[in-house]
């Protein structure tokens, strides 16, 4: 088994408390009123529950025992007392009805908010976050960890509140009944909590481990299921099974230990309650025999009832302990993700549609004109200048590496003049894709700078920067939904006609119409129903419909046959006439008509020029092109 990065181990300390507070904040912030109502209702409901045993004393002492032996006992007072009791019970039922329903709404509402915020935050995270974390561990936040939260909010919180209130009310009642016997109860509470902490601590530890094991198994399964076809091709089933068994076994161990400790908790606390009962009876008996503390038969009867109902809430809290620890560990992972630094964006230059007035000055306008301008507010004097978007991209002395110790690009300087088609050629790993990653700021350069229409791209708002760039990425990703929706992804308000046009331009219209449901064909799981080439065509259509000012094609046609490719290319050339296009391709035929071709090697540009210029230089490009050179 490969050494998979385990998520950071959560510890049960200050952080846990902080997490709990933060989680509670979700409840109290959004559902303040409801939560107060819940608290009141829980109070009423627990009073009603307690009054079952509490009332017994009064009923016995004041209404029943006095009647014993009477010839024709008068039940009126007993009935009245029962009537009052019935009212208390009824309000208890109503309260419990209200709070269980409210808790459902609060619990689910909080979950929805946590999920939504988690997803929203994830969208803001830089690409590096996705590089650093496995898909499985990110998925696990939304599934396993959120599930434990659900359990905690729906079951544990009301249970604990209810139990805590019951304990307080019972304790007060016991105190009133017999302060002396209550001393014994206090001692027992100390013993019980100590035992609960011991058992619970152990189970908590294993529950946390169980969640971690579950996360690793999720990660493993996610990766293997994605690559299941490769597994089949390599007859790797048995080995996958062995690796899975190992993970499965360790999950079994942690899970069975966690649940063992959790299951033991109930009997332990419950029987300690029995012990307490005996001790109380012995002590109470002795006291009443000796006549100390004014203990009557009725007092003893109800006090002993209380002793029984006193341990029950402890048992319940103890049983919830595990799911709370588990949920808090999950919550901590969720919050860790929410606390990840979002993509930094200090840009303030925005992209606007523009038109030229009579004097030839640029003004901002709402409608699409095919003319774009950078809106550049100057903080110093409060003025705003508009710069036409031309697609002039320049790199100055750029050095970059994905990690500190391994530079991919070195001192790169290049320029794309407006309207040019610029191509990058070079062996795989020469840094071509990296360049595009830097233009749209998926990553930020360590050294050097990039200027876009003479504006430092760090000053441009990322969203606007990316909106100005249409990109077809090397790895094609489609989304669940119809083909229509997938193409429309490039321009959400596009009409059906526009979608058809884009598809025609990308030469995808033909095969789409051949599908039984045409444009309404539903794609699932990254469009696995389509061939690689067809998926690329859709990705191109998606970019084409956006009609971007600058276009970057990163191996966009690598799986498309050359005939189709040349048709697509003509279409794209027409679309992008007068706009800047960056092309990365291995097939030299794709880039022949580029205005400038950069030959990259090991992160440096070794040749640049037009096709003809480069051929006449008789350098690397020439040799590549003529196939005479088998590059090293």
């Amino acid at each position, binding site marked *: 088994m*490969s050494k998979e990065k385990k998520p950071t181990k959560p510890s049960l300390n200050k952080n846990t408390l902080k997490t709990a507070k933060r989680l509670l904040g979700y409840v109290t912030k959004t559902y303040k009123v409801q939560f107060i109502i819940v608290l009141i209702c829980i109070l009423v409901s627990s009073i009603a529950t307690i009054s079952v045993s509490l009332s017994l004393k009064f*009923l016995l002492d004041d209404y*029943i025992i006095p009647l*014993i*032996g009477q010839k024709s006992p008068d039940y009126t007072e007993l009935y009245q007392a029962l009537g009052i*009791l019935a009212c208390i019970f009824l309000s208890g*039922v109503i309260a419990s009805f209200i709070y269980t329903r409210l808790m459902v709404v609060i619990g*689910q509402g909080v979950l*929805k908010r946590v*999920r*939504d915020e988690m997803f929203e935050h994830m969208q803001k995270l830089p*690409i590096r976050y*996705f*590089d650093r974390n496995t898909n499985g561990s990110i*998925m696990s936040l*939304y599934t396993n960890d959120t599930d434990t939260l659900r359990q905690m909010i729906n079951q544990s919180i009301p249970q604990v509140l209810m139990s805590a209130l019951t304990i307080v009310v019972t304790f007060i009642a016991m105190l009133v009944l017999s302060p002396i016997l209550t001393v014994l109860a206090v001692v027992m509470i100390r013993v019980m909590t100590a035992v609960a902490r011991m058992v619970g601590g152990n189970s908590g530890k294993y529950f946390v481990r169980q969640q971690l094991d579950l996360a690793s198994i999720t990660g493993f399964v996610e990766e293997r299921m994605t690559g299941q*076809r490769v597994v*089949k091709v*390599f*007859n*790797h089933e048995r080995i996958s*099974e062995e690796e899975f068994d190992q993970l499965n*076994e360790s999950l*079994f161990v942690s*899970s*069975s230990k966690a649940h063992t400790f*959790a*299951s033991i908790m109930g*009997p332990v606390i*419950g*029987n300690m309650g*029995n012990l307490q009962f*005996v001790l109380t*009876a*012995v002590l109470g008996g002795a006291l009443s025999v000796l006549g100390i503390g004014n203990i009557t*038969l009725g007092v003893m*009867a109800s006090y002993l*009832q209380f002793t029984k109902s006193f341990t029950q809430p402890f048992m319940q809290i103890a049983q919830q302990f595990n799911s709370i620890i588990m949920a808090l560990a999950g919550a901590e992972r969720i919050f860790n993700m929410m606390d990840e630094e979002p993509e930094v964006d200090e840009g303030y230059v925005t992209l606007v549609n523009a038109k030229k007035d009579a004097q030839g000055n640029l003004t901002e306008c709402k409608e699409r004109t095919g003319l774009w301008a950078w809106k550049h507010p100057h903080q110093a004097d409060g003025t705003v200048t508009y710069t036409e978007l031309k697609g002039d991209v320049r790199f100055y002395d750029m050095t970059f590496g994905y990690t500190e110790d391994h530079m991919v690009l070195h001192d790169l300087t290049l320029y794309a003049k407006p309207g040019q088609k610029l191509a990058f050629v070079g*062996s*795989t790993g020469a840094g071509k894709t990296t360049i595009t990653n830097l233009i749209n700021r998926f990553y930020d350069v360590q050294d050097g700078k990039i200027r876009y229409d003479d504006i430092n791209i760090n000053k441009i708002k990322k969203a606007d920067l*990316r909106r100005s*760039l249409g990109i077809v990425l090397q790895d094609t*990703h489609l989304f669940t939904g119809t083909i229509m929706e997938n193409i429309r*992804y490039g321009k959400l308000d596009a009409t059906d006609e526009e979608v058809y046009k884009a598809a025609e331009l990308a030469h995808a219209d033909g095969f789409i119409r051949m599908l*039984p449901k045409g444009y309404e064909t539903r794609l*699932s799981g*990254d469009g*696995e129903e*389509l061939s*690689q080439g*067809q998926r690329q065509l859709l990705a191109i259509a*998606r970019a084409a419909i956006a009609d971007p000012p600058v276009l970057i094609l990163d191996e966009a046609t*690598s*799986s*498309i046959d050359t005939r189709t*490719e*040349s048709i697509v290319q003509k279409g794209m050339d027409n679309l992008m006439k007068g706009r800047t296009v960056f092309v990365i391709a291995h097939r030299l*035929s794709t880039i022949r008509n580029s205005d400038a071709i950069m030959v990259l090697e090991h992160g440096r540009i070794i040749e640049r020029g037009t096709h003809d210029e480069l051929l006449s230089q008789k350098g690397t490009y020439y040799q*590549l*092109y003529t196939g005479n050179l088998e590059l090293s």
Partner: protein
Amino acid sequence: MDKKLLRSVREYKKQSFLTPVLVAAEVFVEVLIPILMAKIIDVGIMNGDMAYIIKLGALLVLLAVVALFFGAKAGQLAAVASSGYAKNLRHDIFYKIQDFSFGNIDHFSTPGLVTRLTTDITNVQMAYMFTIRLLARAPIMIVMSLIMTVTISPAIAFMMLITIPVLGGLLIFIAKKAHPHFIKVFDEYDELNNVVQENVNAARVVKAYVREDHEVEKFGKISGIVFRLFTKAEKIVAWNSPTMQFTMYIVVLAMVLIGGESIISGDMLTGELTSVIVYALQILTSLMMVSFVFVMIMIAEASTERINEVLDEVPEMEDKADAVTEVTNGDIEFEHVNFSYAGEGGNLSLKDVNLHIKSGQIVGIIGGTGSAKSTLVQLIPRLYDVTSGTVKVGGTDVRDYNLKALRDQVSVVLQKNVLFTGSIYENIRWGDETASDAEVERVCKLAQADGFIREFPNQYETMIVEGGNNVSGGQKQRLCIARALLKKPKILILDDSTSAVDTKTDALIRQAFREEIPDTTRIIIAQRVSSVEDADVIIVMDKGEISGIGTSEELLKTNAIYREVYESQMKGGKDSE
């Protein structure tokens, strides 16, 4: 609980049966405790008999210790049984998936399978644990408590006898009502996970199109539906506790009434009333437990159904009993092959394909996007079965081979390829677990991957991250080729596997093939004519049919499609001269 699923309990049967037995023992003891308690109150305290109190007290403590022992042991067994059951289920599902053919895999989505292996199994595990722990406890508790109640007050016992089915019925009614809603919730959950997964996978696309808000909105919509459905389902379940409390209070009131009268008339002692109430509460709590377990089983049932979908899926391919285990040579034959992904009656992707490739030949396949090139070669290692006709390898129908044997000899580099978390060594060794470092390095040299691997700081020990995203597309392709070469197959198929590799490296790879593995049948699907130009045979595919077969020279004369592709790609070369 689903019978079929329960078969997976296997070696944990002992624990599963012992748990209820121990629970029963625990309950027997537990039921005795209130009697002792009542005696202590009524006899001991009433008479101020300390010796009696201590005697019964000691007995009670003893019983408590026994109950604790049984209870704790039962808890431990239940934990082991349920975790073990979950382990076996996960094992069965995962192993089942390993037996899936490509066609089977197409039926399930990755997130769907992941949820089944995690959340769904956890649900079943919890339901199982509570079932074996509580379902034994509840009936025994109810019966025992009833018997005890009868000995004290037949009237109250009669009342309880009526209450139990009424309350039980109500609780089950509530659980049944909620069930369909829970099923809907879980379907919606899948949807939610799917959006998350797509967004994690396609984070770059979302960012490049600045569609973060769009995705957030999409997610919000589904999470809104989950919220609504879940709230609805749980609101139904929320009827449980007020219903239960209502019943409980009525019972208590009635008991005080009946019991009070009995006490007054001298038929009952005060301590007995206390005990009767304790028994009544125990009965009601047991019913509550039953309904709690019932809800859990209901939720788990939705999961059970989903798990069964996987377990019930019939693997489309199974080895015959007398399957051929040796592939004699790299001969390939297609006879009147029709193929549809949808099976019989579906849209034909391949139409009446006839083909003969001789062992050791180099075959190029070329054709437009969607012309079924990949489909054609996927039939050779029997990734899919033909809809009609026959595919033969080494003169034997592929369906007669042992699958493992066939696929060991027919190595495919898939177009959509995947590397796995692990070092480069580990990844390449997928081809042959026993290969030495030197062998791994040799195939990497052949695939022209050795060069860039050596440039990594950790060389062959470089860790590949999930999905292989820390190497470039071209590097990934070459690693995948190396991995396939390590198998030393009789037939090697490259499905557009050098598309991200530059022409020169591509040429080097082909040259290495020619020199190092001349006897292997090599099938190369490519877009570049240069990649297939020097092949022994070139197949031109068009819309699922073979449009032409021959050498490059022959096809230039006879095949219009080939000529057009050739000219469009070679024109550049000629211009420059």
